[in-house]
């Protein structure tokens, strides 16, 4: 029964993630911890498996459209994988309350950022400008030291929270490194798999990934995100984004109450 619920939950998270472009990883960890009674470290590890699955599937599509800069991605992966692996290792020494608190803070921060931008996640205007006739304008990635440092942090956050970190990697490449948005998006997706794997391997070795939870969840997320990617052009994204923010705020509140309940 729990298995069925995990598939359904994964499906919904994958669907919302693909529709909004935010990535469903944000929902996976807290819902697993709060509603499925999974210890938070296992919830993070499990969420990473689902993140790898989605990244692999969507990245193969981007690669076939030749919008991924494999060389840039591989270079930044040096930093994201390092950050992710080290942080995943350190998480073994964090206690549960610290992780839950960090996650609640992260959910609040993300919700706030989305609300401030008026629910507009994808700058469609920019995306359109980048491909006037489906061609990628010539570019040279700039400011590698800055890009690598930011990638190290993005990798660390991924290993700490079990998220893909697309909303961090895309602006790093687009704004700091002068990479066209369409390439930045595809390359971020490409990097997410390796980044998540770098930390997931550490979680797995520690016994923080339970196949009985990870498999049904990944199956649901996989189907949900494939469907979401199909539906995305036809759905009014803004409504879905606000729905997602509402869920995120609820989860942040729930985590905080949970923490307070323990402290008192």
């Amino acid at each position: 029964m729990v298995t069925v619920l995990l598939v359904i939950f994964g499906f919904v998270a994958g669907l919302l993630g693909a529709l909004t472009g935010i990535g469903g990883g944000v929902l996976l960890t807290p819902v697993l911890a709060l509603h499925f009674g999974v210890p938070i470290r296992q919830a993070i590890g499990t969420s990473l498996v689902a993140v790898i699955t989605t990244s692999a599937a969507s990245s193969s599509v981007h690669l076939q459209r030749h919008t991924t800069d494999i060389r840039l991605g591989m270079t930044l992966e040096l930093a994201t994988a390092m950050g992710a692996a080290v942080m995943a290792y350190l998480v073994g020494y964090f206690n549960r309350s610290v992780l839950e608190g960090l996650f609640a803070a992260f959910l609040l921060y993300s919700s706030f950022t989305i609300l401030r931008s008026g629910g507009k996640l994808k700058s469609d205007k920019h995306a359109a400008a980048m491909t006037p006739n489906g061609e990628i304008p010539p570019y040279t990635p700039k400011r590698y030291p800055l890009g690598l440092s930011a990638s190290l942090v993005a990798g660390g956050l991924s290993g700490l929270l079990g998220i893909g970190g697309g909303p961090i990697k895309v602006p790093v490449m687009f704004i700091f490194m002068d990479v066209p948005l369409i390439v930045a998006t595809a390359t971020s997706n490409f990097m997410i798999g390796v980044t998540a794997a770098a930390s997931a391997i550490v979680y797995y070795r520690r016994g923080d990934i339970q196949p009985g939870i990870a498999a049904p969840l990944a199956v649901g997320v996989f189907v949900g995100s494939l469907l979401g990617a199909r539906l995305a052009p036809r759905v009014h994204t803004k409504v879905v984004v606000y729905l997602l923010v509402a869920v995120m705020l609820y989860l942040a509140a729930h985590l905080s109450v949970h923490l307070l309940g323990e402290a008192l």
Partner: protein
Amino acid sequence: MSEMREPGFDRIVALVLRVGAFGCFVIMVGGLVAGLFLKGQVPLDIERAGVVLMLATPVVRVAVACFLFFREKDYRYGYVSLGVLLILLLGSVFGIGEH
């Protein structure tokens, strides 16, 4: 840098990811279906195989790209890929924190 990309390279890497993602999906579904009919360890072992293959897919992707870069004599990115591969493998050696 963007003009240095060649279609064949992208296609091979895409194939690795697709085979990994869909292969693992099928194995995991197999494990879930087996769980409906079988009790005990077998369904869980199938699911574990799916999860482990999923974790291995990005590693294989880096290894394949590494091989392709060296075959093209693009040593700089060959070594970059090798570095990423090393980080991934180190994680699996030193990935034992407290339980």
